[in-house]
């Protein structure tokens, strides 16, 4: 399992790990979306500290969760993004929407 979630005080934290590619993103999405539905968090915090690799599937994962959270007026935060992931995040422009 490459995603662990914790819900506390209205905030859902998803600790992601390993490689985020199209294959891994699917499982992460199912787990996170299940918890969003269950807990209705005001904030979804995606924690990248244990992620070693990410391709554009990770951008899809972020954008998809952003859209989902926005439906209920919630927010998404990106936490502990390793330097290796910054280039693809910069290229995608998601920082214009999400801190």
């Amino acid at each position: 399992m490459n995603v662990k979630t914790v819900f506390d005080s209205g905030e859902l934290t998803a600790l992601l790990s390993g490689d985020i590619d199209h294959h891994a993103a699917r499982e992460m999405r199912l787990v996170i979306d299940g918890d969003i539905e269950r807990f209705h968090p005001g904030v979804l915090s995606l924690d990248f500290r244990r992620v070693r690799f990410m391709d554009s599937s990770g951008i899809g994962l972020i954008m998809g969760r952003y859209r989902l959270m926005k439906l209920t007026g919630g927010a998404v935060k990106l936490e502990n993004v390793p330097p290796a992931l910054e280039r693809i995040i910069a290229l995608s422009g998601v920082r214009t929407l999400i801190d």
Partner: protein
Amino acid sequence: MEAVNEMTLTFASKSMNENFARAAVSAFVLPLDPTITELADIKTAVSEAVTNAIVHGYEYGEGQITLNAKILPGGRVIIKVRDKGRGIENIKQAMEPLFSTVGGERAGLGFAVMQSFMDSLKVTSKPGSGTTVTLEKYIIRRNRAVNDERG
């Protein structure tokens, strides 16, 4: 120009092979002593190309993906990812950032990433018979003194 080294792999169009393709290419280019960034660039581009073949080429169905990698003199790396899937009608449109035919979870950034992380990107496709993505990157020769540290 004669290749210094070459390899070809054929694998099933399954998403678990995205990781396999990245690992294989990564191991193949390692003798060129790439930096962590160069290696990450190549792995990311290969991951995008293989994912495109699975998601768009074969539309999650069965098929074979062929990955060919060559090292040419001067640290030039050429990687071809080929599928025999549905092909692309309009390559120019497919390559536009944020254009995705499948919507939802796909960011539509695959080609933009390949273009930006590699030195060159070429796409050839024929509707109904498949797509070939050719990626090229120069691994810059550095002072090999670092080899001493690695033993």
